[in-house]
C-alpha cells in the first residue's frame, strides 16, 4: 500500500494551496484596516515609494526602519502577523541566502577580516554587503506582500490604469484572473474524478499520461471558452475598445495618507543624508 503523495498529487496540491491562499488574501483585503481603507491607487503609489527608498538607500538603519514600518502597517491593517512573517521569510533564506553567502567572504568582498571559517576570511565589507542585500530583499518582499494582502486582486489590477497601463491590458488581466479560478476548479474536479475511479495509487507513467491528456483537454476547453467569452462580450456591445467602471474615489484620508508618506520619506532621506555626512 502506498502512503506517500505522488508527484501529480503534490503538484496539484501545491497549485490548489496557492489559489486557496489567493482567496484568503482577498478575505484579508476585505476586512476593515488601515491600508484596506485607502484608495488602491494611493496605497500602491505610497508602498511603491517606500519600496524604491529601500532599493536606493545606503543606510542599513533606514532599511531597518522601513522593515519596522511594514510590520507596523501590517499590524494596523489587521494582517495576521504569523501568516505575514511566514510568507515574507520562507523564501528569503532559501534564495537570498544562497546568493548572499559568497559575498561574506574576502574572495568576493575584500576588506578587513572579521573571522575565518575553514580558511575562508569573512570580511566586514562582506557582512555589510550581504546585510544590505538581505535587508533590501526582505523589506521589498514585505512591502509587496503587504500590498497584495490588503488589496483585493482586481482592485490592484484596476490600480494599474493609474500608472499608465492601457485599459485593454488591464481588462485582459482581469479576465485571466476571473477564469483562472474556473480552470483550477475544473482541474480539481478532474483530479477528484480520477482519484474516485483509480484511487491515488496511479503508476508514474500512467500518471504522466493522464496529466498530459488533461493538459491538452484543458487547453481545448480554454480555447473554446475564449471564443464563447468573446461572443458574450460582443453580445453586450463590445466593439474592440473596452470601457470599464471607474470605481476609485480618492477621499480626504487618502490625501492625508499621501502627505504623511511624503513627509516620512522626506524625513528618512534627510536623516540619511545628514547622519551619513
Amino acid at each position, binding site marked *: 500500500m502506498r502512503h506517500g503523495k505522488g508527484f501529480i498529487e503534490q503538484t496539484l496540491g501545491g497549485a490548489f494551496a496557492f489559489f486557496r491562499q489567493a482567496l484568503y488574501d482577498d478575505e484579508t483585503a476585505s476586512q476593515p484596516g488601515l491600508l484596506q481603507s485607502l484608495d488602491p491607487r494611493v496605497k500602491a503609489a505610497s508602498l511603491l515609494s517606500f519600496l524604491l527608498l529601500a532599493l536606493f538607500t545606503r543606510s542599513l538603519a533606514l532599511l531597518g526602519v522601513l522593515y519596522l514600518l511594514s510590520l507596523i502597517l501590517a499590524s494596523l491593517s489587521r494582517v495576521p502577523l504569523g501568516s505575514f512573517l511566514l510568507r515574507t521569510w520562507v523564501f528569503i533564506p532559501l534564495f537570498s541566502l544562497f546568493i548572499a553567502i559568497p559575498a561574506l567572504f574576502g574572495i568576493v568582498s575584500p576588506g578587513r577580516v572579521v573571522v575565518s571559517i575553514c580558511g575562508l576570511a569573512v570580511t566586514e565589507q562582506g557582512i555589510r554587503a550581504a546585510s544590505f542585500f538581505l535587508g533590501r530583499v526582505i523589506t521589498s518582499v514585505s512591502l509587496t506582500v503587504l500590498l497584495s494582502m490588503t488589496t483585493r486582486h482586481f482592485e490592484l489590477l484596476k490600480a494599474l490604469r493609474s500608472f499608465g497601463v492601457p485599459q485593454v491590458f488591464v481588462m485582459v488581466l482581469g479576465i485571466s484572473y476571473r477564469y483562472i479560478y474556473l480552470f483550477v476548479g475544473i482541474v480539481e474536479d478532474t483530479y477528484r474524478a480520477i482519484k474516485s475511479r483509480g484511487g491515488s495509487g496511479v503508476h508514474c507513467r500512467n500518471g504522466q499520461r493522464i496529466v498530459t491528456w488533461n493538459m491538452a483537454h484543458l487547453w481545448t476547453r480554454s480555447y473554446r471558452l475564449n471564443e464563447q467569452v468573446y461572443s458574450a462580450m460582443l453580445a*453586450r456591445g463590445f466593439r474592440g475598445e473596452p470601457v*470599464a467602471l471607474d470605481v476609485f474615489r480618492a477621499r480626504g484620508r487618502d490625501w492625508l495618507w499621501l502627505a504623511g508618506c511624503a513627509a516620512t520619506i522626506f524625513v528618512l532621506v534627510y536623516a540619511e543624508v545628514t547622519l551619513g555626512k
Partner: protein
Amino acid sequence: MATENVFECRNLHYAYRGKFPALCGIDMTVAAGERVALVGANGSGKSTLLNLLDGLQFADRGAVAYRGQELTEAAFADEAFASRFRRSVGLVFQNPDIQLFCPTVREDIAFGPLQFGVDQQTVAARIAELAETLGIAPLLDRSPHQLSVGEKRKVSLATVLISDPDVLLLDEPTAGLDPRTTTHLIDMLDAFAHAGKTVITATHDLHILEDIADRVCVFGQDRTIAGRGTPEEILADEPLLKANNLIHVHHHHAHDHRVMAHNG
C-alpha cells in the same frame, strides 16, 4: 393594426465547420411583445438558433431578419446598426461562466451600458436599482467564481437587463436551479414580458412552459421545427414529445414493469 415582427427566419440552415449540421431549414417568426419557447432535446439546435438571432453566428443558407433588417456580417460592420441592435437585443447564455467574465459582479453588470457610452454615474445608479430588484445587492463586490449557480443566473440576467433591451433571448435559464430560484426567475421574466418586451426562451424544462411562453416551437432531432402550438397544445401532444425525447419514456417502462411485478 398589424403587430410588427421582431424576428423572421426563412429556411435557416447552419452547420458547424460546414459539416456538423445544427439547423436544417428553420422557418419562424416572432412578433413584438410575444413570449416564445424553443423546446427540444440536447443538441437539437436551440442554442445555435439563439446565437443566430443575436447576430453572433450567421446563417449558411436562408436568412434571419431583425425588424426587417437581415442579420449578416456586413450589417454588423455598420456601427450604428450594431450598436442599436446590441442595445435592443440581450442574450443570456446557458453557461453563466461565459456570461460573467469580469473580476467582480458590479463590473460585469456595468460592462454592457459602458460599452454603449452610458456615463459612469448613470450606470452606478442603475446597478444599485437593479441589484435591489433582483436581490443581488450583497453580491456586487464579489467575484463570479464565489457565487452559487442560482446567484450566477440572477447576475447573468442583470448583465442583460441593465441595458433595458426590447428583446430578451434566454438559453436554458432554469438549468441547475432549485424550485424556489426557478419560481423567482419565472416571476422576473413575467415582469419583463408584462412591460411589453419580447422573450424567447430555449429550454427542455416542460414544467415551466405555461409560465414562460404564449407559443412553443418544438425542435426535432432532425434540427427542424417538428411542432408548434400553445403550451397547452404542445404539452397535450404526447407522441410529439416522445418522438423528440422530451418526456421520460424510460420512466413509463419502469412504471409498467413495477405494475406487472405487482400483478404477479
